[in-house]
């Protein structure tokens, strides 16, 4: 005997229910389908039409069974969604940069070419993002499907007033603090570039020897001091008009204009004064590739952090404006 449509429907529905509930579910579905078919037969439908109409009305058997046995049809429901989302954002913000910098540093120290360093950092970052997303979501999907103990709520009940976020932006006071910090740092930086020309008094070997190559005064050191001047103007502009996408773009440009020549000079060995290096006894054994790698990764890391900071602040300012509108 071939299976009827009803047999196939009931089988498909019961199959998706837990083993212990299957037999009962099957009997209940057969009762319901039978009763509803009879009602249509009384209205004059043919048996085949009636069966088809009833089963079509019942819809997807797996969805129907889920409704019968109270099984969630979402991966993560409203109970855990916010906890999941907050944890995921936190993990991504912490783990991905650490992994990327760690890999870049390791590759750079081992003397890999620059393309390999960047490529590895990108590949590892992507793979860390995918893993964090997958495993975090998996844990919460399992949690969603495990009943909380009787009379207790799950980890969703942990919210307290202390978790209220501080209000970001567009408070002018925080922008003033940013301005003061930026201008102070930039002025000190420019002064240091000039001052090192006359030696560094607290390092005995460098008391009268410039640290940076004096030949760079013909172009590159004035260029860097010029960029620092532009950075100060930029900081004032950000203070005056707040972060916009246009300014975030200028920020990227300024970082590139500073970082790329500085790294190029460093890697070419033209940045430091040979006399100063000699006075310090450089290179210190096998330390050269490690020191250079750490310096390169730090400089690039600081530039990237600054660019990302600008973009995040611009995005937040835009959101605050949209909310206010």
């Amino acid at each position, binding site marked *: 005997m071939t299976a009827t449509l009803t047999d196939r429907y009931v089988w498909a529905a019961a199959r998706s229910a837990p083993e212990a509930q299957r037999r009962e579910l099957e*009997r*209940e579905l*057969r*009762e*319901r389908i*039978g*009763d*509803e078919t009879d*009602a249509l037969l009384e209205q004059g439908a043919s048996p085949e039409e009636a069966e088809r109409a009833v089963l079509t009305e*019942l*819809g997807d058997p797996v969805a*129907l069974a889920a*409704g*019968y*046995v*109270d099984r969630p049809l979402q991966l993560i429901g409203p109970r855990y969604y916010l906890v999941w989302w907050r944890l995921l954002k936190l993990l991504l913000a912490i783990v991905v940069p650490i992994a990327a910098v760690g890999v870049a540093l390791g590759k750079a120290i081992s003397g890999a070419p620059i393309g390999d360093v960047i490529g590895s950092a990108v590949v590892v970052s992507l793979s860390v993002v995918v893993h964090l997303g997958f495993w975090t979501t998996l844990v919460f999907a399992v949690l969603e499907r495990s009943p909380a103990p009787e009379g207790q709520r799950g980890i969703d009940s942990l919210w307290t007033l202390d978790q209220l976020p501080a209000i970001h932006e567009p408070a002018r006071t925080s922008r003033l603090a940013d301005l003061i910090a930026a201008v102070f740092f930039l002025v000190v930086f420019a002064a240091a570039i000039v001052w090192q020309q006359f030696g560094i008094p607290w390092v005995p070997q460098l008391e009268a020897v410039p640290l940076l190559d004096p030949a760079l005064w013909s172009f590159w050191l004035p260029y860097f001091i010029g960029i620092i001047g532009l950075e100060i103007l930029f900081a004032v502009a950000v203070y005056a008009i707040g972060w916009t996408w246009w300014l975030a773009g200028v920020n990227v440009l300024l970082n590139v204009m500073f970082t790329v020549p500085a790294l190029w000079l460093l890697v070419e060995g033209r940045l430091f004064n040979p006399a100063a290096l000699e006075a310090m006894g450089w290179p210190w054994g096998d330390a050269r590739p490690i020191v250079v790698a750490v310096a390169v990764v730090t400089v690039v890391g600081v530039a990237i952090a600054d660019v990302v900071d600008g973009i995040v602040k611009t995005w937040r300012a835009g959101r605050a404006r949209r909310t206010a509108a």
Partner: protein
Amino acid sequence: MSTDDLAAGHLQELRRGTVVLACLIRLRTADYGYALLESLNALGITVDANTLYPLLRRLEKQGLLTSEWNTDEARPRKFYRTSPAGERLAETLTGDWKLIDAALSRLTGDDS
């Protein structure tokens, strides 16, 4: 979303709890799913089969209904009956229903 859909959604929300109450009262005499559906709809308590059948299961799981399979006829049917706990809940819900009704009457200024 059209206003009809909107109204339908709110009506469904308003009726959701009343279906539970109607079932608990109606099942003081045992009955099976399809007969219950017919009789509720005949009384003007509109309820969808896809809502009612899972609801009966849930109420049984919560101990508010008891069930028994009747195999006297060709088609076995599951008969549900209100349990003592279900009876108590029905009283509570009925009391609350009356309070809400009175409160809404006061709200609309219809004290008669």
